[in-house]
């Protein structure tokens, strides 16, 4: 018999009087321990016990609240910081990249001694490149004679010498003539030595003086006229800029530009 009484009058433990509805009578001196829950096997109604219905209700509530806790943890986890919009995620990523780049650059900045040596070698290499490009000037008459085409055989040797100064990332056109002058086509071939060719322009190189924060030394070559108007600075016909990497001893990020004056006087080369 399951007791369904929830609100029983509390039994006075010291009272020798038995609670109501007891089936048997206990001696007044003996204390009767109450059942600790579960079904009343004695068949009597024990107001202190938990009935099955109560237990079921309680368990349902506990299970429900466990589900709630799990849900709460789950929802708060996803609504927290993990749910980033694309724009935010990208910004955070690129911020981290910037930090890394700056730290790596600071790490890899050369020592003063290496930097100075690097600048000396940069000037040496840049001067050599200027000389090789100047060798190309004497090809102008041959280009004109071939109707604007340049026979690769004529540039083969010079290209071979220029190639090691540039990494593969630089376009191969950097090893071909940067600029040729129209008026050079009528210059006599002379004795055939490139350096004796009386060209109307020449390549000069600036002295690399600084190293930037990425460890690169900026270098600029200029094609200037050899016979300027009297009293004036020689006109710049074209320029080439590059970054010299002292660790790899190569020139990268090569940019060629032709001025308006240079374009007007340029000898067009067709075959490339």
């Amino acid at each position, binding site marked *: 018999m399951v007791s369904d009484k929830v609100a029983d009058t509390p039994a006075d433990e010291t009272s020798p009087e038995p609670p109501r509805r007891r089936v048997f009578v206990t001696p007044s001196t003996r204390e009767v321990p109450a059942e600790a829950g579960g079904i009343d096997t004695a068949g009597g109604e024990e107001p202190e016990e938990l009935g099955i219905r*109560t237990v079921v209700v309680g368990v349902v509530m506990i299970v429900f609240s466990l589900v709630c806790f799990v849900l709460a943890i789950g929802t708060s986890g996803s609504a*927290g910081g993990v749910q980033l919009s694309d724009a935010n995620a990208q910004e955070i990523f690129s911020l981290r990249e910037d930090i890394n780049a*700056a730290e790596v650059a600071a790490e890899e900045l050369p020592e003063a001694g290496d930097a100075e040596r690097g600048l000396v070698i940069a000037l040496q290499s840049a001067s050599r490149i200027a000389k090789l490009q100047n060798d190309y000037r004497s090809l102008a008459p041959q280009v004109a004679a071939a109707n604007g085409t340049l026979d690769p055989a004529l540039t083969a040797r010079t290209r071979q010498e220029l190639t090691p100064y540039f990494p593969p990332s630089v376009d191969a056109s950097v090893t071909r003539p940067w600029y040729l002058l129209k008026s050079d086509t009528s210059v006599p071939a002379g004795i055939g030595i490139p350096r004796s060719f009386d060209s109307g322009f020449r390549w000069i190189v600036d002295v690399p003086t600084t190293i930037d924060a990425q460890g690169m030394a900026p270098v600029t070559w200029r094609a200037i006229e050899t016979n300027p108007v009297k009293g004036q600075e020689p*006109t710049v016909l074209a320029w080439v800029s590059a970054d010299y990497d002292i660790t790899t001893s190569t020139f990268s990020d090569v940019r060629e530009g032709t001025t308006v004056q240079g374009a007007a006087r340029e000898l067009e080369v067709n075959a490339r």
Partner: protein
Amino acid sequence: MSTIKTWAKAHMRPLFLGICTTVMVLGIASVAAAMSANPVADSREVEATKEQLRKERATARQTLDEKHQELLSTIGGADVERVERDSHTIRGFVLDLAATSSTSRTVRAEQISLDTRYEVLDPSSPVLTEFLPGWMASTEGAVLRLGDLEIDVAGIAGLDYSYTVTARLDPVDGGSKTQYLFVTVSTSQDGSITKVDAYRADNRSRDELLAADEAAADEEAEG
């Protein structure tokens, strides 16, 4: 202790149900709290993270800059402060030149104006006689802004410093095209310009330079 135990045993049911109800109420409360997780609070977290990273980036860049400045002062090539001062002067000059693209004045008026402002220029300077007319004609009133300016030391002769400058000027509106300038400048110790020559990249060269710039920008965006 035994009083509590006995009391508890006597009030088993209400105690048990009381506990269960409390737990359930806590469960509901925690779900309610989680559900109503303030989106403003979350975006504040994200902003805080970004702000922290920005600070870290500024610090890292400053460290790099300091190390770089230290390196420059030790290799003893160019005087860093001199180069910086001259760079300001050069930048101002390039901007003045470029600004003539959108002027309402005549070429002659601009020539006079620049001649007056810059001591190094005189009526026969190629900058005024050759560069300026061509520049104003080819830019056709376009408003340009400085997109990129690179100033490199070209040489040091005694107290005179020489520089080569490449500048990219981008149109403010879509109507006109980017222009590239090549400028050679020399300065004396007091920072005044002693020599200057300016050139505009011809159109075909400009197209090639722009393509190279855009290719480099694409690479950086992908990388």
